[in-house]
């Protein structure tokens, strides 16, 4: 039995027990608890209505107060009571209003009327759209089993309803955005510590950041806390092939050779072990496998690593000694997006091992245990469909995949191959794999295998552009959402809830309503026999203090201490200790200690292309936002002046970037802010959708040139394994046309 089937079984058993409680919750009265009106700020009595919500421009869910005048949202202010975001709202958050009032928004259901991707649409009524969607889903289920429909929902507080719908509809094939992002990090830390730790950057004295860019890829409150910590004397050391803004503000920046981070961290472990600088008490009492680790790292000397990483041995030793002196308030920052290399899990394992040697677990300024407040729920007993296949379509393609997340890369491969069984339907919600999944041509090929594709989104994204049926969703400012929890680093954990600042515009409908309507048409209505108010009531039934805080301040902050809470408690690993050596990896064919395999030099005339972020774009979700387009409405290729000179490429010249996956053209940004062997472009441009009018025809799509390699352990996309060639196509019309940084 697969892990997912087991999960379903246990859930079914569990739900029988909780059925009574659920039923009680479902019939509970809808009270005025959720009116969501914040008190008017001083001086604005009457004129301005204030509504608590949480930002949806990226995954962070920062607290905001929407100011509404005469039914129009005029401004989004940060909610100062919200300890995760501490009264901040970034450029994208402030531009949330641009998403709400975007004239390019999807306004009503659209049915493809021409060839796929041709952009010819026919307007449907909601009844027509839902009848058609239900009919197509039913037809695919009958012909190919229910697992013949794939579901993919982005990071959104209503995605839970898409997952619920998938489960009662009967498909195991549910994927999220996460396998294009961070599952290899999760794997590494879960297998080492038994939990995905939360870094207490605020109290940290020494932060080593590799594979993360916290002053551009903003995470609240870490981005703020690192600045505060640095003002209190903390040191920030950044390893990055690009001169990111994090590198620009760091105490030290090392332009590491891409893909060699594992060598750096193994050398750190070597120094910590051989110079006996590790946290002896913690290692002795709380870890397992130290002897194997000590033997394993002997060959990984700093001198050896220096040649791999392009970082001097003397610096590797010094950084390690400095961190050891600052321990336990010293950390290798765990980061988020780790969809970089085929060994990305092992890279993060090495980082986790260094953290363990520093003894920073459960310590002030170290890695802390995540704390989540448990909410109630409206349970369900998902039906069992006898004819379904045994397992997920991507099962077995990676060594240790998370079955609840799956792998976009391997699912796409399976759909293209039609093996082990065909998938002919795809339901996507607020996720845009056409822009975020490496190898766009393959995503197109996958979609071409489908009988019917349904996309629910706010804009006509590139993914929506390829769909058969496009359904318009409201923005978060128009939505009533479930209560959702957040982790605010060491400051707090908490809960937040969205209330509509304005009514849904045009004919947009929340995905909760959409799946509810589909369920009714597919005779699955009993599983959605509740309203959002019912759902929230069930969530908050046993935590009235949360309900009260949400009504009063728009947020509930749990400020209990976040460190010193795990003393004497077991780790959730087989050995009940921190596993420096992961014995159970052996049976999956995974190295129990990270082994370094030398990286092939980038050949002359080629470049490694890397993925990254700036603070104005959330991958592809915000690039068409009119307010953010005023900062940047185009991307360009970062290339170092030395290779640029050899290729006769000047600033603003049009260049072609080519890989086995595809070719794109964009302007060059000749800059010393990147290594000579590496090139970079922002994600989210070079769109195919003409519905993204502000950016259509501008820049290039990085997903179109990235090859789709995968992390061997998890199946996380490996986006830094592509080598590209760069050639000049045309001189710049105007030299200064490339967006400023």
């Amino acid at each position, binding site marked *: 039995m697969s892990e997912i089937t087991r999960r379903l079984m246990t859930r079914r058993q569990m739900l029988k027990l909780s059925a009574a409680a659920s039923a009680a919750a479902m019939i509970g009265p809808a009270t005025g608890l959720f009116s969501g009106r914040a008190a008017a*700020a*001083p*001086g*604005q009595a009457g004129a301005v209505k204030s509504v608590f919500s949480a930002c949806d421009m990226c995954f962070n869910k920062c607290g905001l107060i929407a100011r509404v005048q005469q039914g129009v949202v*005029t*401004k*989004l*202010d*940060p909610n100062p009571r919200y300890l995760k975001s*501490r*009264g*901040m*709202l*970034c*450029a*994208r*958050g*402030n*531009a949330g*209003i641009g998403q709400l009032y975007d004239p390019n928004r999807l306004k009503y259901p659209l049915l493809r009327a021409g060839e796929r991707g041709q952009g010819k649409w026919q307007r449907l009524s909601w009844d027509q759209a839902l009848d058609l969607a239900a009919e197509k889903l039913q037809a695919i289920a009958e012909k190919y089993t229910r697992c013949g429909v794939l579901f993919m929902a982005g990071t959104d507080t209503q995605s839970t309803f898409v997952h619920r719908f998938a489960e009662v509809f009967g498909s195991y094939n549910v994927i999220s955005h996460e396998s294009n992002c961070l599952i290899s990090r999760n794997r590494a830390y879960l297998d080492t510590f038994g939990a995905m730790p939360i870094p207490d950057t605020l109290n940290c004295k020494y932060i080593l950041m590799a594979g993360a860019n916290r*002053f*551009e890829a*903003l995470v*609240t409150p870490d*981005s*703020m806390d690192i*600045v*505060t910590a640095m*003002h209190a004397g903390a040191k920030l050391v950044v390893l990055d092939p690009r*001169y990111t*803004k*994090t*590198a*620009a*503000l*760091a105490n030290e*920046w090392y332009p590491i050779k891409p893909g060699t981070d594992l060598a750096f961290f193994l050398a750190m472990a070597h120094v910590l072990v051989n110079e006996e600088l590790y946290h002896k008490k913690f290692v002795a009492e709380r870890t397992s496998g130290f002897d194997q680790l000590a033997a394993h790292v002997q060959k990984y000397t700093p001198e050896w690593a220096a040649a791999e990483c392009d970082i001097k041995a003397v610096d590797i030793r010094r950084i390690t000694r400095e961190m050891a002196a600052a321990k336990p308030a010293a950390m290798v920052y765990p980061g988020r997006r780790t969809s970089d290399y085929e060994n990305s899990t092992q890279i993060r394992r090495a980082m986790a091992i260094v953290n363990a040697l520093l003894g920073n677990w459960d310590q002030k300024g170290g890695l802390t245990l995540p704390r989540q407040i448990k909410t109630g729920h409206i349970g369900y007993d998902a039906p069992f469909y006898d004819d379904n296949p045994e397992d997920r379509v991507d099962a077995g393609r990676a060594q240790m995949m998370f079955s609840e997340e799956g792998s976009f890369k391997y699912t796409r491969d399976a759909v293209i191959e039609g093996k082990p069984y065909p998938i002919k339907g795809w339901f996507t919600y607020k996720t845009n794999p056409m822009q975020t999944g490496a190898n766009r041509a393959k995503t197109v090929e996958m979609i071409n295998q489908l009988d019917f594709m349904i996309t629910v989104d706010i804009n006509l994204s590139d993914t929506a552009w390829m769909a058969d049926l496009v359904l318009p969703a409201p923005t978060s400012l128009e939505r009533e959402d479930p209560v959702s929890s957040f982790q605010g680093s060491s400051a707090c954990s908490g809960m937040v809830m969205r209330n509509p600042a304005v009514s849904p515009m045009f004919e947009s409908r929340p995905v909760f309503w959409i799946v509810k309507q589909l369920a009714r048409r597919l005779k699955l209505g009993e599983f959605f026999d509740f309203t959002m108010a019912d759902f929230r009531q069930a969530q908050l039934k046993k935590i009235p203090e949360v309900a009260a805080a949400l009504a009063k301040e728009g947020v509930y902050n749990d400020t209990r201490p976040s460190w010193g809470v795990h003393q004497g408690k077991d780790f959730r690993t087989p050995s009940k200790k921190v596993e420096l050596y992961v014995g159970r990896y052996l049976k999956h064919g995974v190295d129990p200690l990270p082994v370094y395999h030398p990286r092939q030099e980038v050949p002359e005339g080629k470049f490694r292309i890397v993925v990254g972020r700036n*603070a*104005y774009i959330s991958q592809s979700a915000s690039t068409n936002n*009119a*307010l*953010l387009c*005023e*900062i940047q409405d185009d991307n360009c290729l970062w290339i170092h002046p030395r290779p640029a000179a050899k290729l006769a490429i000047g600033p603003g010249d049009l260049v072609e970037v080519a890989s086995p996956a595809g070719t794109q053209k964009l302007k060059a940004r000749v800059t*010393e*802010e990147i290594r000579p062997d590496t090139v970079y472009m922002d994600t989210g441009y070079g769109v195919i959708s003409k519905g993204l009018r502000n950016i259509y025809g501008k820049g290039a799509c990085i997903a179109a040139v990235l090859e789709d390699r995968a992390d061997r352990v998890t199946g996380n996309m490996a986006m830094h394994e592509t080598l590209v060639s760069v050639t000049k196509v045309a001189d710049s019309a105007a030299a200064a046309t490339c967006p400023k*940084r």
Partner: protein
Amino acid sequence: MNKSRKQRLAMVIDTSKCFDCKACMVACKVENRVPKGFWRNWVRNDGVGDRRRTQYQPGQCMQCAEPSCVAACPVGATYPLDNGLVVIDPKMCIGCGNCVTACPYGARYRDPATHLADKCDFCRHRLARGQEPACVETCPTKARVFGDMNDPDSEVSKLAKQKKLVRIHAPQVETKPYIFYLAGTDLLDWARTPVLPGNVHMPPGFWKQG
């Protein structure tokens, strides 16, 4: 803020806290409905340089005590309030553009629709509601500190007492800006000499007639 005493509104900016997220710029743009292509505030940087570190320096109208823009206005449409804010009366502005070139900081623009001068006024309408300027409130690291320099208990006064502050001066003409920076900010010499449209330089005395 102490209402019985005359206010002097000011900002103290800690450049070392800014990571150039541009939240302040978009917050201002939305709050003040700044037209497309124009900004009332900015984040400058000092490039990469040899040190391999970059500084980001936020700024906006400096609410000068001796504002060259006020001196340049032929009709008295722009003037300082008692609290130090330099404001524009759109009913009086004739859209001549003198104040735009007269500002050493490039803080003014002419609205493309109304052709009238516009600029930052520390979100005067928000101050009236008891809120801080939008750029101050939204900043992740609170790099901008706003307050009354005449109130000894205000954050800006305390910073003025405790820390060394610097100003960004215009060459040749001292306008006495009321945005202060914590010493250590690198970008100090970017302000330009006030001129009238057509690059017309005026004798120093001209700029003191405000």
